[in-house]
């Protein structure tokens, strides 16, 4: 059995009276491409923030690479890479300076950081803009820079919060290439996304969260086996159909705005 690299036990997070994540039990194995799905406000971003140390859980336990996150924060952070919701970039540095700097924060030597920066800029098609301030980059360029910053130190796990949101098709292809390469080299990816087609194509395993609770988890085949939809007994269900069945909430024609 493969090593479990991300595990949460009874994870819970509240914001005042709002219960954002409730009794979350997650298990992600090494080299899995785990897609974490859910409708808006379901608790995806809150979960990923807790898993990466950006947010403290109200209760529960998080173990990353076998280490307790609360007591081994620095050791865990040095082994993971993150593309957070707001990207968290130092926008007053150039793309090259930023990647170089992030590499050195993770303990890379000056020479190695510079070398990897050049390779990443080349791979991400950011070479021509390497000396421009990140503040002047387009949204897609910033996303690519954030992903480059997340992988520069060679992490064991990548946490990506909506990496394809607002990214054009060309940039998305580049990102996908990098992620697939990362998985093939033994890495693990935990990703949230609204784009179900992308998740269906890339992810090996999927978890669906609704109102802060994990309502389905497993490989796509396992989810298909567990979800039955009338009229689809023979044909394989798409992820969208599984998602809608698990999460519910689609409106009937009668509920749609009357004047439209």
């Amino acid at each position, binding site marked *: 059995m493969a090593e479990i690299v991300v595990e949460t036990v009874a994870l819970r997070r509240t914001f005042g009276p709002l219960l954002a994540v409730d009794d979350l039990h997650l298990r992600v194995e090494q080299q899995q491409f785990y897609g974490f799905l859910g409708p808006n406000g379901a608790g995806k971003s809150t979960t990923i923030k807790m898993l*990466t*140390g*950006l*947010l*403290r859980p109200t209760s529960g336990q998080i173990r990353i690479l076998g280490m307790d996150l609360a007591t081994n924060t*620095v*050791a865990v*952070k*040095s082994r993971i890479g*993150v593309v*957070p919701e*707001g*990207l*968290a*970039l*130092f*926008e*007053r*540095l150039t793309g*090259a*300076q930023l990647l*170089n*700097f*992030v590499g*050195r*924060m*993770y*303990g*890379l*030597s*000056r*020479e190695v*950081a*510079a*070398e990897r*920066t*050049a390779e990443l*800029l*080349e791979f991400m098609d950011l*070479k*021509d*803009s*390497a*000396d*421009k*301030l990140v*503040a*002047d980059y387009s949204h897609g360029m910033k996303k690519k820079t954030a992903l480059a*910053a997340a992988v520069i130190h060679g992490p064991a796990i990548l946490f990506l919060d909506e990496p394809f949101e607002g990214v054009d098709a060309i940039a998305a292809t580049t990102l996908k290439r990098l992620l697939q390469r990362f998985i093939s080299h033994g890495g693990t990816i935990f990703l949230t996304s609204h784009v179900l087609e992308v998740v269906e194509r890339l992810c090996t395993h999927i978890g669906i969260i609704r109102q802060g609770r994990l309502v389905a988890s497993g490989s796509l085949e396992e989810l298909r086996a567990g979800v039955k939809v009338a009229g689809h007994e023979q044909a394989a269900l798409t992820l969208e159909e599984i998602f809608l069945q698990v999460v519910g909430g689609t409106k009937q024609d009668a509920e749609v705005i009357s004047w439209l």
Partner: protein
Amino acid sequence: MSAVGYVMGALFALGTSAGMCAATIFMLRSGQPHLLEFLLWAVFLFWQLVPLLFEGFSPGLNFREVARYPVTLRLYLLLNAAYGVFDPAALTALLWLLSIWIGIVAIRPAWALPAAGLLLAFAALNVFLNRIIIGVFERFQSTRKGRERVVVVLLILMLVPQMFNLMINGLIRVPWAHMPPWTLNVVTGVRHVAPPGLVLESLVPGTNTVLVPLALLAGYLALVVFLQVRQLRAVYLGEIYAESFQVQRELKVKPGWQLPGMSEFMSAIVEKELRYIRQNARLIVLLVNPLVLCVFLAFAGSAKQKFGFGISGGIGLLGAFALLLAVSVSNLSYNTFGMDREGFGRWLLSPLPLQKVMRAKNFAQGGLITSVYMLGAPIILYVRHVPLDLVVAVTAAFFAMLIIHLGAGNLFSVYWPKRIEFAQMNSRMASSAAGFASLLVLLPTAAAIGAVILATWLLKLNWLPLAAGLAGLAVSLAVYSWLTDWAVRHAEDHLEEIAGALGV
């Protein structure tokens, strides 16, 4: 603008207009009509500069956006001119012109008609010229670099009144009597071709005919109308003025800095901080301000009178410079994550404890302020004599204050984090709460310094400043450590609030 602001503005406009009318009457009654040119210059400068300053502090309606609405070019031109006329500064200037005209009519009724025509032409010229300048300004504002450059220019403009203040107080002497003759020629030349001078020469003909100034005035008016129409037509037709990228052919990534005696990450953070500061020209202006003042005061002959002669003059100046600089570190340290903005999240994601990040940031901030001190202090010591023991005492006190300010800055940064907007003139470098809390640092340090000076003077304890400076330095290190630990504990308990305030 609030209701109080409107009332104050209206009172200002009415009060100054009454003054303009009274001044006109006085000038004409005393047979000195040429003095009217001063009033016209006041109108001209006010009309051109004040709306620009307002625009820099709080940008109003951008007319580039208005062009995107379904309006004809003619309507767009009219709206633009009307917006120029109804600007509060323009309305005030128009009131001033009306007051000048009333003054003229009261004393010289025969000038009523030509004065009305000339002042109307002058007003039109001001409206169009101001709209052209604002248009160029908006063009700058449409790019990040442009916006930041505008902020720097406005900050430098704000230093001018400070220099005037020093001149008025006699700290800087301008040898007007010894100005070279060509400067007078330049001033006279400008007067003869500038709109205020032309209006006056057309109204009160001297030895020359009025035709030349009138023709020049008409020419100016035609030129500004032409330029305004051309500028607005380009905007109306969809002119795009955005950041442009220069394509770089070959990618060379230079390794980062390695500072002697520093770890890899410490060097990296110091490099990052200094790069950030270097790219923030507004901050550089704020940091250079004490140095500029120090150089002016060091070389100003009359500074001796203000600070006393000989040794006390030099030590006073060095002490004031050290104090000003140590306090100016608050621009950097009181909101230490403010410039990082969403980048604050990167510190949280990195495998570096916040304490190390704060210390490295403080090292960069303190190093920069120390460099400015090392530039300014030798200039003072070159011009004024200060005994070595007092130099050491002031320098030790400077470092003590600097270190305490850095520690307090760490605490204020996590208690009252504030996202800094680089291209907004009115975006403060730290929160108002941090500004008030700084009194908790300033008052005790000022009291300690005052006590040392008083004790030295009263008890003739010449060794006291040096001993107190060195003791203060030792105490400051302990205080810094205590404040920084406190800041880290608070930050770890309030990460989400800090991140939220910084826009992560």
